[in-house]
């Protein structure tokens, strides 16, 4: 073998590796950890999942940083919440990725919120109302029944973008849906004592959770969605709680706990940190753990004695 050939081979080897790696698995780019976990459940060894954000980050406020652009460039499927949750960063990320497969409207672009019924759809759109989302509240992952609907749709989408493995995706999706339904039944039964329990939320992040469990939101610590709690607003919440006492105050793992802790101390109600997504708390290791942990925390704080 001549030197020239050797050099060409040496140069080609990493490229060949790159090529084979790209074909080995379907590259899924998930905006939030819950969709990363779901794609992993439905795709198993067939997918390689990159998650853009962690449970400790505010999904509204992410920057289109270089590492994310690079990962979006190589994705076969982008799985995000949609409903304008990622409007501040995803459009520029997709634009800069130069990846035709994952642009809006393509099969490689999956928005979970398209497949569930949305709550809190504003009747009036005006920024004087704070950071409102025209399409409705985007935090759909706090209701496991929504996860079930998204799973079905995502399973179908995986079959579409990777038809060679369609039967495997179908099988994995059916298997997951069955296990998930059993788990939802279990959680719903466990959480029955929470029905009608009055609660306070730090951000309007839990409407789907409340809708599922029948919790009653009596106050919100943010004066408007996305606006930091102010001292005067916290005082007015305190005053309102005198008339309608709440059993607990909920905040998501990514949020600053100070406002909730202040209320907890001054109103004498427990502050409950909710994982909000996979990885938010020690127990929320996967999607099942997420709801095991959420239901356990709510029961510990708020079930009737």
């Amino acid at each position: 073998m001549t030197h020239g050939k050797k050099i060409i081979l040496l140069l080609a080897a990493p490229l060949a590796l790159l090529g084979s790696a790209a074909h080995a698995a379907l590259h899924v780019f998930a905006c939030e950890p819950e969709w990363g976990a779901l794609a992993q459940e439905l795709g198993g060894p067939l997918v390689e999942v990159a998650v853009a954000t962690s449970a400790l980050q505010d999904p509204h406020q992410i920057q289109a940083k270089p590492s994310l652009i690079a990962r979006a460039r190589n994705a076969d499927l982008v799985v995000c919440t949609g409903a304008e949750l990622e409007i501040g960063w995803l459009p520029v990320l997709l634009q800069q990725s130069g990846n035709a497969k994952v642009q809006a409207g393509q099969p490689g672009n999956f928005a979970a919120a398209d497949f569930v019924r949305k709550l809190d759809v504003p009747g009036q759109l005006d920024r004087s109302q704070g950071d409102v989302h025209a399409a409705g509240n985007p935090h759909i992952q706090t209701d496991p029944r929504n996860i079930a609907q998204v799973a079905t749709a995502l399973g179908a989408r995986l079959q579409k973008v990777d038809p060679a493995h369609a039967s495997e995706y179908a099988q994995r999706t059916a298997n997951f849906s069955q296990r998930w339904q059993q788990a939802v039944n279990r959680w719903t039964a466990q959480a029955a004592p929470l029905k009608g329990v009055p609660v306070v939320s730090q951000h309007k992040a839990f409407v789907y959770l409340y809708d599922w469990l029948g919790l009653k939101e009596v106050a919100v610590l943010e004066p408007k969605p996305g606006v930091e709690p102010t001292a005067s607003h916290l005082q007015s919440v305190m005053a309102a709680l005198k008339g309608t006492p709440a059993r607990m105050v909920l905040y998501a793992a990514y949020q600053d706990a100070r406002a909730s802790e202040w209320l907890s101390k001054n109103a004498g109600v427990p502050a409950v940190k909710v994982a909000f997504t996979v990885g938010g708390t020690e127990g929320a290791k996967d999607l099942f753990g997420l709801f095991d942990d959420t239901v356990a925390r709510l029961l510990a704080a708020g079930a009737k004695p």
Partner: protein
Amino acid sequence: MHKLLPASIALAMAAPFAAQAEIANDLSALRQEIEAVRSAYEARLQALEQRLKAAEAKVTDPAPAVASTPPPSALVAKGPATAAGPNAFNPAMSLILSGLYTRTSQDPAGFAITGFQLPTDAEAGPGSRGFGLAESELGFAASIDPWLRGAANIALHPDDTVSVEDAYIQTTALGHGLQLKAGRFLSGVGYLNAQHAHTWDFVDNPLAYQALLGTQYGDDGVQMTWLAPTDQFVELGAELGRGRSYPGGDNSRNGAGMVALTAHTGGDFGDSHSWRAGVSVLNARATDQTLSGTNAAGVSVNNAFSGTTRVSVLDAIWKWAPNGNATRTSFKLQGEYLRSTRTGNLTYDLDQTNLTDAYRSVQSGWYLQGIYQFMPGWRLGLRTEALDAGSPDFGANTSLLAVGNYRPRKHALMLDFNASEFSRVRLQIAQDRSRQGLTDHQVFLQYQMSLGAHGAHSY
């Protein structure tokens, strides 16, 4: 329950006049009636539940886009409020409103950076004193078809003039990490150059940008970028343009008056740190570009430059936020070094002497700035910068033009408050020594508001 109300009113009115037995009869009749109402409601509830279940089952057969479950309760509204009819495809529109109060200790009239010859209409220095409207910007953006998108930003200047800041079309479907842009756009050289004024962290752009790139280099032409298929961010770009603004000068040529090459790379260190760094080169050609300079006697003269300018830029930015969550605290450190080489002919004093000879200069500048968000909405920033005018070779004009070794410097401190991501109020104080022998103490108070659609910001 409303059926109960007339019944109970009737009962209450009848009671004083009726006998005990009649009351008992009425009561049992009422009970029956309540029972009937209750069973009717239960039946309706069951029917509703069944409809809901049926609808949920339907969702298992996933239909894209529209949520398939019909609204089961009053909680659900009727989808987002979108415009129907011919307006439904209107581009996303945004309006930036900005106002400024400026106080300077030196008169900004006739501002010039010592040692740097700039075009007579260059946007350099603190601008005019007192109250003023800063640039208002009207933006439009939308997809054109499945393969292209378009965007335009129209700047409305405080002196009632209008300019097209950018107006371009961009491919969305080339794939392979490739993107092509055509039209008028801000060049991708450096870090700050491509950023619109409303995203700057200070009221003004650094001196190095003012002196070497005409504040911000925009051009009419084409841009191609390619993103490497690696986990490490590597982006290469090439631009061709007419060279319509400083350091270029309008050329009546068929070929390109500006060629730029850019290379950027970046990534993360853990969850909390991210960075980007790059190197860029911009070559621009100018013909009879009128520059305002200072002669050996300290008098302002108009000169003309013909030749080429090469601007090289090194840029780096590092951002930190605890666990990547910038809601409460974050920090960003950013710096750039610019170096400009001009080679060609310079005509000294167009109006009188009018003497032309060879000209070559190497000038450079840098800035370093840090922005610290210390609580939600509040940011504090510090910027320090310097320029080096070098020792230009004016050929035969050497004795006529001023050559010094003065190094312009400037320091700025800013504090801004962002009540929401759509509004910003900023206070900036600066000590500007860009004019030899003059130290200008500047105070700026600025607001910047974003109305309507607010596109995502780049890194």
